[in-house]
């Protein structure tokens, strides 16, 4: 369900690519701790085993201190960037959905449209309505599986204008989720790379998730269609339809 992205090297960074940070900070801390223990153990034990332990420990220590992992680089993995910026996982069993789309409009414009969350039902098919309350929180009504109505409250927990919105649902609703949406400028003046990450607990648990998949109502597909409709609205100014009347 996750999407894999190509990491781009910014111009000027290319020469230093071999020393670029690509390890997350928690992982770096763990690398430093284990590396130090292994290195000290190697010195203490000596012999072949000690030598190997020492080399391994040294490599881990370097990885931790420099934040660069050559294995990650070869695999094209970069865990240093998005950390802490996107929604964190829900405790227990949650599902993660990530979708990204490029919209031929400036990040400011896409952000302006999205940040007025009353616009969301226009392109999010399963949403019936969104109301903004006076305390800044919002009330959401959606169509759930089997024609059931789902209702919940949510609030924005972090917002950086034109760049990022992070939100979470409040306890007591029919739907529990955390999400983030990023508005990054696309290269070559191609508008905005919009990235939505969503962690949610499927209604009715694992069985509900399987049923949704079977009914083609899996949230990743829904989200993809929703973002396509958002692009239609922001670029072409209307939703495409083949209906004749």
């Amino acid at each position, binding site marked *: 369900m996750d999407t894999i992205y190509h990491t781009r090297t910014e111009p000027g960074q290319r020469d230093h690519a071999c020393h670029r940070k690509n390890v997350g900070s928690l992982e770096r801390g763990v690398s430093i701790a284990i590396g130090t223990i292994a290195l000290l153990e190697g010195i203490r034990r000596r012999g072949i085993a000690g030598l190997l332990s020492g080399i391994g420990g040294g490599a881990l220590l370097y990885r931790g201190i420099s934040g660069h992992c050559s294995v990650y680089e070869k695999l094209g993995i970069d865990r240093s960037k998005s950390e802490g910026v996107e929604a964190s996982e829900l405790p227990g069993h949650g599902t993660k959905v990530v979708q990204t789309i490029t919209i031929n409009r400036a990040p400011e414009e896409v952000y302006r449209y999205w940040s007025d969350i009353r616009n969301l039902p226009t392109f999010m098919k399963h949403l019936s309505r969104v109301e903004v309350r006076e305390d800044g929180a919002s009330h959401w009504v959606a169509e759930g599986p089997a024609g059931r109505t789902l209702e919940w409250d949510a609030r924005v927990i972090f917002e950086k204008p034109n760049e990022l919105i992070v939100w979470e649902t409040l306890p007591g609703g029919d739907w529990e989720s955390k999400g983030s949406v990023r508005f990054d400028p696309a290269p070559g003046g191609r508008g905005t790379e919009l990235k939505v990450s969503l962690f949610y607990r499927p209604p009715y648990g694992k069985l509900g998730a399987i049923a949704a998949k079977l009914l083609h109502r899996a949230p990743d597909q829904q989200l993809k269609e929703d973002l396509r409709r958002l692009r*239609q609205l922001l*670029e*072409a100014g*209307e*939703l*495409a*339809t*083949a209906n*004749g*009347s």
Partner: protein
Amino acid sequence: MKAITWQGRHRVDVSSVDTPDIVNDSDIVVEVTATAICGSDLHLYDGFIPTMQKGDILGHEFMGRVVAKGRGITELEVGDRVVVPFNIACGKCYFCEQTLTSLCDNSNPNAAVAEKLYGHSGSGLFGYSHMLGGYPGGQAEYVRVPYADVGPLKIPDELDDERVLFLSDILPTGYMAAENCQIRRGDIVAVWGCGPVGQFAIKCALLLGAKQVIAIDRIPFRLELAGKDERVTALHPDKTDVQEALLELTGGRGPDSCIDAVGMEAHGTTFGALYDQAKTAAFLATDRPHVLRQAIQACRKGGTVSIPGVYGGLIDKLPLGAAFAKGLTFRMGQTHVHRYMPLLLDMIREGKIDPRFIITHRASLDEAPELYETFRTKTDDCLKVVMTP
């Protein structure tokens, strides 16, 4: 209203359906005055294109008069005569901005289906399967046309319908096929398929500077028509060894560019062609690339293979080794009709090209079922059918 509907393999009906109306602000409704059957409609008729549904209105080559317009329309008035491009384009997305209108990001409401098959979806098309939008087509009395400030081209009254109708698809398609060849003065271009697109590709290749065109087809009438121009050499594949003849006609170099104006339903009697037919019949492959193989084999080193013929799925035994060894360039895809329409309208007005020479049958919509069959079997010297509702 009256409309031609798809009912399954080798079956179309004249049906009575709801008349379309304005839905979005950028829509117009066109009262059709002329519409044609396209060679690519035969792929639908033969059941080669997935996601067709019983009752779908066919047709993507049409023109007519504006009878209603949405609130957002600024470029057109009720009463204007327009030719409508077969591909639907929003005019605002990245691809439309690059004039790649057949790749429009926004006009296909069923993009997810095409995406599963092709990785990404092209634009929506009129009357050409649900995978490509499910838009009702132009073989009808009325058509709803979205994004109408972007697509439809206004036609001056002095040009009659038959002269401009083919701006909707096959004339730009023939032109783009020739333009894709990157022709330099003195080039020799080989064209497989002398159907309507092939005929226009031949004319446009000559207009763009080709010294000679070699036309290949199995139907004598079509070859004769192409061969009327003294700069065209006609080859019948059952009577001549095409590869040998192409080498002989080009001093052993091979044609500078090869145009495959046949596509996925190539007919032939060679071993390769029969093999393809057997495979598609057994659903082991979807397309028959017999012509494409010949074109790759014949093309000169460093030459270009241009493919206006439609391919839909998977092909088998494509000689990619030959293409690689000879450093060939491939250019293909649905035509960006919007890009070429104004230029070609000027060429028609100046008399540089008169597209009417391909019309062999004129009829009413009621005769469509019969004419689909005539066109499919290529009997009665049928090359192009134009219908008036």
